[in-house]
């Protein structure tokens, strides 16, 4: 007997050790449940982290653009309009008024880490007899690459944006048959064409983005889109990404511009995450319930099997409280033991899955995120579930009449 363990722990441990098969079976059942929970939770958070990383390294946290242009109805007199219908105006590509002043103010706002102007518009990119319409983003590489980690996605060439340089997506490069060093012609509908040289080819992991986006230097873009000295958007990053919605609201309030947070522009992602989390929580709850009922049923049987032992313990002066604790501890120990084995099995399955399930190019399908807090929480939750599940059988044991128990 371990002198550091009290009566209840010693008795609980011995009861479990004696009913070895029962103990092994229920620990196995708990382990399977915990493994499912750990695997699912870790997988979900890995996929979420991966998606967040992709989103947040390929776009800014807040994009500031001009407010939409609206047609103001002409009024002949109060209550009387010139025309019955007001036609929705087309949205011309225009620069943000006073954008350098706004950028200066943004840079002084707490919580904002980086600010970069950009010019965005559409153009036609031509190489030989191949042409594609593309979305042009013209940026100052030094500031913009701190917001969008484009250099991390360069698969060929350099992330360099000189006056006559262009960085294109891998799909567009395939369509045009272009590679690093090739010349392309860019044409917009507002200014003369411009010849640029491919300096880098990127792969953002999204076929559409790789096909439709090109990056130019800010001045080149301004010239191409006939917006000399202008900026159509201001890109912003924050220290706390989840504060984006609040910060965007503030910016809108003081500047009058549209400020779109990454949360708003990825609303579908959050809907999907919420749906996943709801289903994950439901699965966890049902697995937890089945684990709890498993532990309870084993302990109910154990109380019946051990009724004579309980009677003897009560006859020799063991209080009801101590008998209660003997069975609660068994529940807790079964939960904890099952959670340790289950967490290891879940983590093992995740590592195996991560190692063998790869993208066609050999890169990982999802990053492996094994947070210690997940294991600690699972351990605590399983132990608590075990104790809660043991409550009914433990009460049953504590209430056992020793006379009836001994007589059998």
């Amino acid at each position: 007997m371990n002198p550091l363990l009290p009566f209840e722990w010693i008795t609980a441990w011995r009861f479990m050790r004696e009913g070895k098969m029962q103990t092994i079976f229920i620990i196995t059942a708990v382990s399977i449940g915990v493994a499912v929970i750990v695997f699912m939770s870790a997988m979900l958070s890995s996929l979420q982290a991966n998606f967040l990383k992709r989103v947040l390294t390929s776009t800014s946290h807040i994009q500031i653009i001009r407010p939409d242009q609206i047609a103001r109805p002409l009024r002949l007199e109060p209550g009387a309009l010139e025309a019955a219908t007001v036609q929705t105006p087309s949205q011309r590509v225009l620069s943000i008024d006073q954008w350098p002043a706004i950028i200066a103010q943004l840079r002084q706002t707490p919580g904002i880490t980086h600010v970069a102007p950009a010019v965005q518009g559409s153009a036609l990119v031509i190489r030989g007899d191949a042409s594609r319409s593309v979305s042009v983003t013209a940026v100052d590489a030094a500031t913009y690459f701190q917001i969008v980690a484009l250099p991390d996605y360069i698969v060929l060439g350099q992330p360099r944006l000189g006056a006559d340089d262009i960085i294109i997506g891998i799909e567009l490069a395939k369509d045009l048959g272009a590679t690093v060093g090739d010349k392309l012609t860019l044409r917009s509908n507002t200014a003369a064409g411009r010849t640029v040289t491919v300096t880098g080819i990127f792969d953002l992991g999204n076929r559409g983005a790789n096909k439709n986006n090109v990056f130019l230097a800010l001045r080149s873009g301004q010239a191409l889109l006939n917006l000399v000295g202008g900026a159509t958007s201001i890109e912003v990053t924050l220290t706390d990404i989840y504060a984006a919605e609040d910060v965007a609201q503030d910016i809108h309030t003081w500047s009058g511009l549209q400020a779109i947070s990454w949360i708003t522009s990825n609303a579908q992602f959050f809907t999907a995450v919420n749906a996943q989390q709801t289903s994950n929580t439901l699965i966890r709850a049902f697995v937890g319930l089945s684990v709890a009922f498993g532990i309870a049923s084993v302990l109910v049987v154990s109380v019946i099997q051990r009724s004579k032992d309980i009677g003897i313990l009560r006859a020799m002066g063991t209080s009801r409280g101590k008998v209660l604790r003997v069975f609660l501890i068994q529940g807790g120990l079964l939960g904890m033991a099952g959670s340790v084995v289950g967490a290891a099995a879940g983590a093992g399955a995740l590592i195996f899955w991560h190692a063998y399930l790869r993208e066609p190019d050999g890169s990982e399908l999802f990053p492996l995120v094994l947070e210690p807090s997940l294991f600690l929480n699972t351990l605590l939750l399983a132990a608590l579930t075990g104790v809660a599940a043991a409550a009914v059988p433990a009460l049953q044991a504590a209430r056992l009449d020793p006379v009836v128990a001994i007589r059998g």
Partner: protein
Amino acid sequence: MANPPTPAVLRLERICKSYNLGTAVEVEVLHEIDLTLERGEFVALIGPSGSGKSTLLNIIGLLDRPTKGRLFVEGHETSTLDDAALTRLRGHAIGFVFQYHYLISAFTALENVMMPILADRGFPDAAMRQRAHALLDQVGLSRWENNLATNMSGGQQQRVAIARALAMNPALILADEPTGNLDTKSADTVFEMMRQVNRTNGTSFLLVTHSPELAKRCDRIVEVVDGRLTG
């Protein structure tokens, strides 16, 4: 100045026990039982099956409560005690030996003997172990102390049960047909063991038995017939 008189180990005053109280099928199984056991007495409790012996033993052992009457254990009046206090008193003042030995199979012989002290004090220690060892020695089983209960004969298990009943050094041991399930030789050994403990330690015994021979070897015989004491 003379010392105050030591209270009797056990005193029953007009103890009654009824079942199905207040219903049409109320039945009284014990009628106004008066009984006193002095310190060091070895008393046989006999009677036919269904006479109320076990009910009486359960009430004396504080496992059941009487419907009427007063019960004193070592001078403590028990009717006013709550369940926790009764459990404490039972643990300290009374030891039990049952017909089917009822050792806890998950523990060794030595650990079974330690259990009452462990349940009382909480944590095991060397003194506890020494006490259990000495008690097993007293019943001639120190060689078997590390055996699990399941690896011992019926007679050996019953001797371990006697050692366990003595663990808290109780004033009274209630033995419910302790030899009823043993062969003649083992029964004689176990009985002699209890007699020896009674003489050496001065522990009082109330022995329920169906055997007239064993009853005759006790200090006194008390007979229960139809819920009344005769003898």
